[in-house]
Each structure stands twice: as C-alpha cells, then as structure tokens.
C-alpha cells in the first residue's frame, strides 16, 4: 500500500495495558517495558528516520474496554499495530476486532494455549513452555497430590484442564480445585486455607492473578504452612506480585517463566540496569515486562525491513525473525505465530528475587495445541 504521509511523519502504534484495576499491578509494568523499548528505538533514530509514537488507552482491567479501544485504535486512530493485553479475557475480546479489521496484536503474556490467529503475535509462554517442565519438577521434588486454586475466568480454568491432563499422564492426582473472583478479598483466601489443612496436598498449583495473588500467599503464611513441603507453584507470580506481597511472604514458592530478573545474560544485566535507571531503583523487572520490551524491538526490526505497517506486508517478515532478548536468543515461530522461549523454574528468595533452579539449554519451540505433549 502506498504511503500518502510524508516520509517524516511518525509511525503511530497502539498500546493497551491497564493502569488501573485488579490487573494493573502487572500490566503497568508491561506498559513501562513497551515505553522503554519505544524510547530506545527513537533514541537510535527511529525506524527509517521516523519515530514511533504510542497511542495509549487505559482499559482499567476490563475486557470489554480492551475491545472498545482496540476498535477505536484500528479505525478512528488509524493504527494497525497494537501492543497489549494481559488476561486471556482481554485478548479474546480483542481477537475478533483485530481479525475483522486486519490489525496486528502483539501479546506479551503467558496464556493457556489452544489458540491461533493470523492477526496476533504471541510473545508469552504457551503451556508446553512452562507447565510441562514445572509439573515434572514438582512431581519429582514434592509429591503427586496437587490442589488447584485459580481466579475465575478462562485462563485458570483452561490451564487447570491442561494441568489435569499432564498429571494424569504422569500418574499425579488433583485432590482439590477452587476458583475465586478476580476481585476476591483476603477473607475468602483465609477460608480456603481450612480446606488445604484438611486435604494436605503436596503442591498448590495457583493460577490466581493480579492483586489477589498477594492475598493468597499472605493467607498461606498466616495459616502457618511451609513452602518446603507444600509450595505454591505458579506460572504468573512474578517479581511484581512479589513486590506487592512482600519478599518474606513470597519466599520459598516456585514460579515457571521464560524470564526472571535474576537471569544472568549480558543482555539482561544491561536491560535491568536501564529499566531501574528509567523507572526507579526498587522497580523490579519480570517476565511480562521483558516480553513487552523485546516485542517492540522485534516489531521495529521488521518494520525497518519492509517500511510498512500493513500487517499483510509486515507479518511475513516478523515470522521467523530472531532477536537477542534479555532472556536469551528468541525467534518468532512461523508455524504458530508464537515465540521460541526459554523455560526456567525459579524459587522466590528473601530479597524478592527468584533463584533460577532449572533452565532449558535453548529456547523451546511453542506447541500451543500440545500436539506433541
């Protein structure tokens, strides 16, 4: 498509992360990662001498707002690329909008898999890139009786379905399953501890997200349980949630993620230091920031090559492209539109960081439909 704009005009890009509401604790970090990457691209001269200009909206943690703003961005605001979404409900709300309007959503968050869209680039972990390794480790280190606790929406329910299947294959068992509203209050988690005391699972698998994460881990501490014998294992509890709940509350529990702030690649040491310089010394990085950050750079690289934001032109060069992200070398997988990502397991320590206790030898190919798992 021919450019009618002058060749000095900026590239307008949409950004949709919540700055308010129940999942703002993590989404605002994704917003920061996005902004930092945009600033870096512009500081280096922009893309083909044109700067990236973000058009930002705050969907306030409500999925229908994500859909509304995505539509506005792709029509009134004249953008075609959107960086955004954390919860699967927000992504599912945006999906039909980007498909119908032929936009391109870059989604920097782990999720439950079993999805494909020609209008989404998935840069967060699919289940084979976190759950499989986590389950094997937990069965080996703690035991086979799992209690599933999650927030009540599509991601936890689907992830638990997958967890049940993985456990069945490995002769593990689900001894309890409970869902709480995203806006659940501390008292509801305290009630849950009673059932845990009676059931005594070996592992608590948590898909509680957002602000409520802190309530779960705090209730656990108040109940006097010991993470050395009954850890909470999560795919979502990151340095951001740990900061919210306090390092002492998080200490000893397990998270599976492609990235932790403590990862020792040269790229990451530099990334973390730049992030803290930009946003504050006590602002930690996390898996969602890192994906939000590297995906902007992957986009900018592809854009420089084709000089067009038309998804029909841009997407083919994005697929198969590679980048040295803070987590390590990654590549966008052409088959699935997802990303080859590193698999790591971390245990929260007393300083609010994660000690990496296991990591893959290279980036793992995504298998969102668990065809080979």
């Amino acid at each position, binding site marked *: 498509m021919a450019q009618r704009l002058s060749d000095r005009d900026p590239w307008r890009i949409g950004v949709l992360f919540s700055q308010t509401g129940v999942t703002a604790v993590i989404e605002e970090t994704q917003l920061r990662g996005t902004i930092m990457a945009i600033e870096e691209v512009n500081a280096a001269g922009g893309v083909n001498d044109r700067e990236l200009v973000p058009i930002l909206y705050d969907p306030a943690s409500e999925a229908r707002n994500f859909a509304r703003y995505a539509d506005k961005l792709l029509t009134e605001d*004249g953008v075609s690329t959107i960086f955004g979404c954390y919860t699967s409900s927000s992504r599912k709300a945006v999906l039909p909008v980007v498909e119908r309007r032929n936009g391109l959503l870059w989604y920097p968050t782990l999720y439950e898999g079993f999805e494909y869209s020609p209008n989404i680039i998935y840069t967060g972990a699919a289940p084979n890139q976190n759950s499989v390794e986590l389950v094997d480790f937990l069965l080996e280190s703690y035991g086979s009786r799992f209690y599933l606790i999650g927030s009540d929406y599509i991601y936890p329910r689907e992830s638990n379905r997958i967890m049940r299947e993985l456990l069945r294959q490995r002769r593990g068992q689900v001894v309890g399953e409970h869902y709480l509203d995203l806006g659940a209050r501390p008292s509801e988690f305290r009630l849950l501890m009673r059932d845990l005391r009676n059931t005594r699972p070996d592992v608590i698998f948590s898909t509680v997200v957002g602000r409520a994460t802190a309530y779960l881990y705090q209730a656990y501490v108040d109940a006097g349980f010991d993470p050395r014998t009954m850890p909470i294992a999560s795919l979502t509890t990151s340095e951001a949630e740990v900061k919210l709940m306090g390092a002492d509350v998080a200490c000893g529990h397990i998270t599976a993620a492609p990235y932790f702030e403590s990862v020792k690649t040269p790229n990451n040491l530099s990334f973390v230091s730049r992030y803290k310089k930009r946003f504050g010394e006590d602002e930690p990085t996390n898996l969602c920031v890192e994906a939000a950050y590297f995906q902007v750079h992957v986009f900018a690289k592809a854009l420089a090559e084709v000089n067009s934001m038309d998804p029909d032109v841009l997407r083919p060069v994005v697929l198969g492209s590679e980048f040295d992200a803070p987590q390590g070398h990654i590549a966008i997988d052409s088959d699935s539109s997802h990303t080859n990502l590193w698999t790591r397991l971390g245990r929260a320590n007393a300083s609010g960081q994660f000690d990496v206790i296991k990591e893959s030898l290279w980036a793992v190919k995504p298998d969102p439909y668990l065809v080979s798992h």
Partner: protein
Amino acid sequence: MSSGAQIDYRQLRVVVAHPRDADGDMLLRHLQRLGCRVDHLWPTPDQLDAEADVVFCLIEPETRPFCASLMEKVHAALVGIVDPAHPRSMQLLTDVNPLAVLTKPVDAAALLTNLVVARNNSRYQRRLQSKISKLEETLRSVRKVERAKTILMEQRHIDESEAYAYLREQAMKKRVPIGVIASVVVESNDVLSDEKD
C-alpha cells in the same frame, strides 16, 4: 494508517464484465478516474484467467459459470450487478451470492461503497480461510501424533509422556516437524504389521 480503512485505488486491478451500454461505460469511466487498473471483459469466459482484486459482473444466466468460478477463486472480490426488472434476478443473486451488489441503473456513489465493502469482505474471508486451514492442519497433526504415541507405548512398553518425549526428541534431532516423525512411526507400523499375516 489503518490497513483496512483506506484503499489505494491505484494498486487495485479491476475487471468490468458488463456490456458496453450506459452502465458499462459509466463503470469503466469511473473506475479509471479513481486510478484503478481497469480491464473490460465481455462476453464472459468460463473462468477468469488473469489476476484481479475486484470484478464487477452483470449477473445473468450466461454469466453464471464465470461468477461461480470467481466465488471459488480466493483473490477476486465479486460485485454483482443485477437488473431488478429481470424476472429471475433475485434467484440469480442468491445462486451467485456475490460479496456486494449494484442494481441497474448503476450510480457512482453505490459503485464506490460496494467496491470498498466487497474488497474488505473478500480480504477478511481470506484471513478466516487461512486460519481454518491452519487449524485443520493442526487437527490432522494431533490425530497422527496420537496414533504414533499409542503405537510407541505398545511396542516399547513406555508410558504416554515418554512416548511424546521420544517423538519430540526425534523431531528435534532430524530437524523435521513432529508430524513427519509421527507419520513414519505409523506407516512403518502398518507395513510391518501387514508382514505378520
């Protein structure tokens, strides 16, 4: 620039399949004025050989084979033109099922609106079709891998997750998709089990 909202008419290849009457001439003139690359085609052949983005075609019994072939052809968006006075026009319209429709006499405003709508719908359909194809391919893969997994479990007396791990390993070592390894396992099992008889 939103890729859906604005069309670059200069990049559009348009075919006008309509006799050179007042409407036909008007279509050609107007599309040329928009800057499109326009070709006239009349009478219609059984199928369109050239590449086109949009085809304006008079819908009548003689053009049915041509229209039918266009609806199968993924790239060309068909805008049908019907004469409401024709006794079978509604039936023909239903049979052909174009992406947009103009009624004779054609007016310029309707031409533009239907061009935009037809083209956007055509592109959307194409994206949906590509998504469907991808999902169908995934389904086939799932079935193949399931069969291979079962065979391996029986033959090697291993459990489910070991069988998957074996398939993944082989796929990685040989640098081929897992579906290929699965096919080999299934086919060699079929061949060998035939030999037992």
